[in-house]
C-alpha cells in the first residue's frame, strides 16, 4: 500500500522545465535518496509527492491510489523540512502533539503517544521546554518525531542535514538510518551530498537538469555509472574521464589517450562493445591507479594535495586531467612525469558524444 510510483512525472514553471518524464518505483519500506546538484528537480519531485505542488504531467500513485487532487493534509505523508519548520512559539510537547491534536486524537491517547515518541527520541526531559532556542540536533529530532508520531506510511526528508556541521552530520547519518529501520517506513531523502546518499540509502536516484539519470544501489551506481555526469558527480574526487580514440590491437580494443599514451587493452566485455575508431571517454576512479615503473599512462604532476589520511595527486591538463588518490607518503613532486598503471577491470568507457556508458558491468 505504501509503495510510491512516479509515472512520466513532469513539471514546468512557465517556460522552465523543472522535471521531465520521471519514472521511478519506490518499494514499500525502501529508503531512496534523490541525489543531484541544485536545480536538478529533486526538490520539485519531493514537493509533488507531498502535494505542495501539482504535477504538470504524469501521475503519482501511493500503492494503487492515484494521488491526483488529494490535498497535502490528506496524503498521510511525513515531511521533514530543510529548516525543520519547528513551531517555535510552542513547547516541545506541543510540537510533538500538534498533528494528533489537529486530527482530533483523544487527549489520553495523545499524551501516551507523545511520551512514547519523546522517550524514543530522548526528548523526554525537554517536553515542557519552549522549542525556540534548542540546538540544531534537538530541533532535527523534534522535526522527525513530530512527523513520525502521525505514523505516516511515507516519510520525505528535504536535505535535513544541510544546516548541521560536518562532525554532527556523521552522527546524524547513523541515527537517521537507525530511525528508518525502527519506523520501517518508505523514505525519500533529497540531498546534494553524495556521502549522505551513499551511506543511508537502499537505492540512489541521480538527477540532473530535471532528468532522472540512473537508479540503483549506492555501490552499483558508484561502480557502474550510466553516464559521464553520474561518473563525475559521484565520488570525491569524481571519476577520471580522459578523452581518447579507440584502436584495435591484437583482438582487443585499446584507447589512444593522446599525450598520455596508449591504455592497456580493455577487458573482453568492453572490447566486444566498444567500436573501433570511436571518440570515447576512458574512465577510472582515482583510487584505482597505481604508480608504476613499467608501462603506463605518462602524465606530468601539476599539484599535490595532501589532505591528511590521503594524498590527491593532480596530473595532466584539460582533456587529460587526472586525479589519483594515494596514501599520504606518496613520493611525487610537482612537475615530475609519473607513470600510472590502471586496473583494467575497473575501467569504464563512455561515448564521447552522448556521454552514455558503453558496455555493461563486468
Amino acid at each position: 500500500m505504501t509503495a510510491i510510483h512516479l509515472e512520466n512525472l513532469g513539471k514546468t514553471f512557465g517556460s522552465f522545465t523543472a522535471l521531465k518524464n520521471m519514472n521511478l518505483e519506490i518499494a514499500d519500506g525502501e529508503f531512496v535518496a534523490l541525489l543531484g546538484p541544485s536545480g536538478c528537480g529533486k526538490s520539485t519531485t519531493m514537493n509533488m509527492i507531498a502535494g505542495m505542488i501539482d504535477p504538470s504531467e504524469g501521475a503519482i500513485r501511493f500503492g494503487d491510489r492515484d494521488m491526483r487532487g488529494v490535498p497535502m493534509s490528506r496524503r498521510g505523508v511525513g515531511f521533514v523540512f530543510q529548516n525543520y519548520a519547528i513551531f517555535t512559539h510552542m513547547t516541545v510537547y506541543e510540537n510533538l502533539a500538534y498533528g494528533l491534536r489537529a486530527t482530533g486524537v483523544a487527549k489520553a491517547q495523545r499524551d501516551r503517544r507523545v511520551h512514547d515518541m519523546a522517550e524514543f527520541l530522548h526528548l523526554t526531559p525537554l517536553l515542557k521546554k519552549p522549542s525556540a532556542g534548542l540546538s540544531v540536533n534537538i530541533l532535527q529530532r523534534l522535526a522527525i518525531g513530530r512527523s513520525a508520531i502521525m505514523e505516516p506510511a511515507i516519510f520525505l526528508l528535504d536535505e535535513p542535514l544541510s544546516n548541521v556541521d560536518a562532525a554532527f552530520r556523521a552522527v546524524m547519518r547513523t541515527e537517521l538510518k537507525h530511525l528508518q529501520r525502527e519506523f520501517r517506513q518508505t523514505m525519500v531523502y533529497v540531498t546534494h551530498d553524495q556521502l549522505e546518499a551513499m551511506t543511508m540509502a537502499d537505492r540512489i536516484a541521480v538527477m540532473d537538469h530535471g532528468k532522472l539519470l540512473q537508479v540503483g544501489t549506492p555501490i552499483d551506481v558508484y561502480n557502474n555509472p550510466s553516464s559521464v555526469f553520474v561518473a563525475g558527480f559521484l565520488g570525491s574526487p569524481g571519476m577520471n574521464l580522459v578523452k581518447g580514440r579507440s584502436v584495435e590491437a591484437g583482438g582487443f580494443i585499446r584507447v589512444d589517450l593522446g599525450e598520455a599514451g596508449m591504455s592497456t587493452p580493455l577487458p573482453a566485455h568492453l572490447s566486444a562493445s566498444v567500436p573501433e575508431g570511436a571518440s570515447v571517454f576512458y574512465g577510472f576512479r582515482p583510487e584505482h591507479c597505481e604508480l608504476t615503473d613499467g608501462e603506463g599512462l605518462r602524465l606530468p604532476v601539476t599539484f599535490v594535495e595532501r589532505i591528511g589520511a590521503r594524498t590527491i595527486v593532480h596530473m595532466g591538463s584539460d582533456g587529460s586531467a587526472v586525479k589519483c588518490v594515494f596514501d599520504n607518503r606518496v613520493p611525487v613532486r610537482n612537475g615530475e612525469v609519473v607513470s600510472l598503471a590502471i586496473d583494467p577491470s575497473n575501467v569504464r568507457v563512455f561515448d564521447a558524444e552522448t556521454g552514455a556508458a558503453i558496455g555493461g558491468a563486468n
Partner: protein
Amino acid sequence: MTADILEAKAEPVEHEDTRDSRRLGFSLTLPAQLLILFIAVFPILMQIYISLTDWSPLDGISWWQAHQLWNGFANYTDLVADDRFWSALWRTVLVMAICVPAEFLLGLGLAILFVDNFPGRGFLYSVLLVPMMVVPAVAGYMFFMLFQSGGPVNDILSFFYGAPVTIAWLSDPDLAFFAVIASDIWQWTPLMFLILLAGMVGVPEDQLRAATLLGASWTTRFRTIVLPRMKTIIIIALAIRVIENFKVFDNFYIMTGGGPGVATETISIYIYKVTQQELIWGYVAAVALVILISLSVVSAFAIKRMSQSREAG
C-alpha cells in the same frame, strides 16, 4: 590579535578620561536637553501649576501670577463631580470599544484576503490604503456631506426603499453617533489592514506547510500558527489605534461639533470646548493632566505586556 592589542591599550586611557568625556558628552547634548526641557518638562510643570488655580486668560493677569487665584485641589474635586466630563470620558471609551475591534476585525479579514496573490491585488491594495492618506478634517467634511438629509447616503437608501428617505443623520443623537463611528472605521481600517498584512506575510511558509502536512485544517492553522505568530504585531496595532482613538477629534468635530447636545462629545472635543468657549483654563489644565496620566499608565502597561510577549515568543 590586533583587536586584543587595541583593547589592552584602550582600557587605562578610558579610566583617566571618564570625567572629561562625561563633561564633553554633557555639553554636546546640552542643547537637545534644553529643548526637551522647554517642550516637555516646562509645559507640564506649567500645567500642574495652572491646574491648582482658578486662572483664565480673561482675568487680566499673566499666567505666572496665577497663584493669586490659588484654589488648591478645587479643580480636581470639581472634576470628580463634573457629569459632562464623565459622560465625555465614557463616550470616548465607548467609541474606542466599537471602533478598535471593528477596525481590527475588518483589517484582519482584508489581510487574509490579500495575503495570497490574485490578479489586481496591487491595484486594490493601493485603493484600500487611500482613506488613511486623507486628511482627517477632509474626511470629516466628506462624511458630513454624505450624511446630510439630502445626501448620498439617503439617496442610496431611497433607491432601495423605493420612496424618498430623509433621515436627519447628524441631528439625531443615536444616528449621529453611528455616523461619526462609521467615519472613523472608514478612515482607520486601512492602517490596521496594513500592519496586520505585514505581520501575516511574515508568518513562515514552511511552518504553515508543516502544519498542513500534519493534517491541520485552515482554521486550525490560523488559530495555532498565524495568530500566535502575529501576537506582537497585533498588540502593536491595537495599542496604536487605542491611543490614537482616544484622541479622536477632527472628523467628529467637523461632522457634529460634539452634538447634537453632547451625543458625540469625546474627551478631546470636551477639552477643546471648555478651553475655547468657556475659557476656564485652570480647570482644563486639571482635566488634561488627569487624561495624560491615565493614558500614560495604560500605555506603560501595554508596552510592558508587549515586551513580555516578545520575550516569551
